[in-house]
């Protein structure tokens, strides 16, 4: 239909006539989305690092001499939240002790017979479950003693919880700020054309016909903002992670996978377009209502 043609032409008119404003709005949206996406990546990355650290956390279970190590392994592995079990023979335990003592390793030579018991080293799926697993282990008759960095486990668990809260908080604040700025920008843009809008309606244009270019403009600017923010973030994240992993390899920050960027695209591009539409709608409909209200 001819109407669609006219509407599309008007969209491009809106975008290109005030190209300065278009670029500014675009860049503003991009900036907002950079903030949202950046905090999303930063926190999800901090989360991954903490999860990694928590994964390094181990529980050592010392086993009474009379039990068969190999037979015990599957039983331990069946305990909930246990991710991995490694056997440690008395010989390797002694080697580790020597290593631990370092300069004073010769002390061990004085021991004669190896006094160390065999043990199991467990990895737990999440630091917050270390306590539960340790208790389950203690209740087993085969286990003589359980040693693990309870304090460290608790710290990591709590750190993880705080980071999760922070993630939600920061993203919520960033999105709120983003909505506010977008809405404001679109609102003022429409405001500055409210008289034209009123004239168009007086000349016989339908509200839909008048509003549609603004709505599509909002969607296009929101989408553009989202896309450019995603591209920049993807690139920046890769560079950033490389840099960090070179400087601080022990953190083992995860390289951006595909699924994290699908999330980003959905969040930023989809969110941008939806936001653009909604903001434009709110801003435009108000002026249309004003213009059509009879004196």
């Amino acid at each position: 239909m001819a109407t669609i043609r006219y509407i599309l032409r008007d969209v491009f008119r809106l975008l290109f006539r005030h190209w300065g404003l278009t670029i500014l709005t675009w860049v503003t949206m991009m900036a907002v989305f950079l903030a949202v996406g950046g905090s999303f990546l930063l926190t999800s990355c901090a989360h991954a690092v903490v999860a990694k650290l928590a994964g390094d956390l181990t529980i050592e279970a010392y086993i009474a001499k009379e039990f068969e190590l190999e037979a015990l392994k599957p039983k331990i592995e069946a305990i909930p939240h246990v991710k991995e079990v490694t056997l440690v023979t008395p010989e390797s335990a002694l080697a580790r002790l020597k290593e631990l003592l370092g300069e004073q390793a010769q002390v061990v030579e004085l021991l004669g017979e190896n006094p160390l018991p065999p043990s199991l080293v467990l990895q737990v799926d999440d630091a917050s479950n270390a306590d539960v697993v340790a208790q389950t282990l203690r209740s087993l008759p085969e286990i003589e003693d359980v040693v693990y960095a309870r304090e460290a486990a608790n710290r990591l668990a709590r750190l993880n919880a705080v980071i999760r809260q922070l993630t939600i908080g920061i993203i919520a604040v960033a999105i709120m700020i983003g909505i506010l700025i977008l809405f404001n920008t679109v609102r003022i843009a429409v405001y500055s054309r409210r008289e034209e809008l009123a004239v168009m309606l007086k000349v016989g244009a339908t509200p839909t016909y008048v509003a549609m270019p603004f709505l599509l403009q909002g969607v296009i600017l929101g989408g553009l903002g989202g896309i450019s923010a995603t591209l920049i973030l993807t690139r920046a994240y890769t560079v950033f992670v490389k840099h960090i992993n070179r400087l601080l390899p022990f953190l083992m920050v995860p390289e951006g996978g595909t699924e994290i960027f699908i999330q980003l695209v959905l969040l930023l591009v989809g969110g941008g377009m939806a936001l653009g539409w909604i903001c434009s709608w709110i801003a435009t409909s108000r002026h249309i209502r004003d213009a059509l209200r009879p004196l």
Partner: protein
Amino acid sequence: MEIRISGASKIFKPDIVALEDIYITVRPGEFLYLVGPTGSGKSTLLRLITGEARPTRGQITVGPFNLRKMGWGALSYYRRYVGVVFQDFKLLPHLTAYENVAFALEAMGIPPKEIRVKTGEVLDRLGLWRRRFLHPPQLSGGEQQRLAIARAVVKSPSLLIADEPTGNLDANTAEGIMDILLSINASGTTVIMATHNQYIVDTYRARVVELRMGRMTRDEEKGRYGSYGYN
């Protein structure tokens, strides 16, 4: 379209009585002058007919449309059949002269080819073809006024409302405009024209409705401009 205004009054917020108890019936195809001193309510009455204002009391119907209670959709549908020349032109400054006229047709969903033909014709007729690429602020006062007339006329409306369409025109051009309005009227369009132009009213005789301080004081077939002219 027949216009029936019965008992219409318009009172602005505190206590400005712009119109009081107006009864007019305009038959389809009629040509009607609305005269009266400044501030007598001519524009307000025209606004009631275009749906820009709603009467405080009374009824207004235009053909099948009841303007007292009309939703948004109906209003913009109605406005397609009504051409309006606003007293202050209300041109779109960011569009060229050509686009200003074309827009009125685009809003009705008319295909581009037809728009090109009709717009070209009307601009030519109003002597604006050579100015078609200029924006309204670059046009002279008279050119702006003719552009406003072109926009109202181009969609061949059933009802043409013209509020002081010759205020910025010299006498010759004003006569040219009257020729156009009369030929449109001859093709069946109802025309209502508010004016201060004594010469026009007295030369091109038609029905005259006079307002004074919001009240109808005269309604004559083939009337004259009236006593507050240059007597």
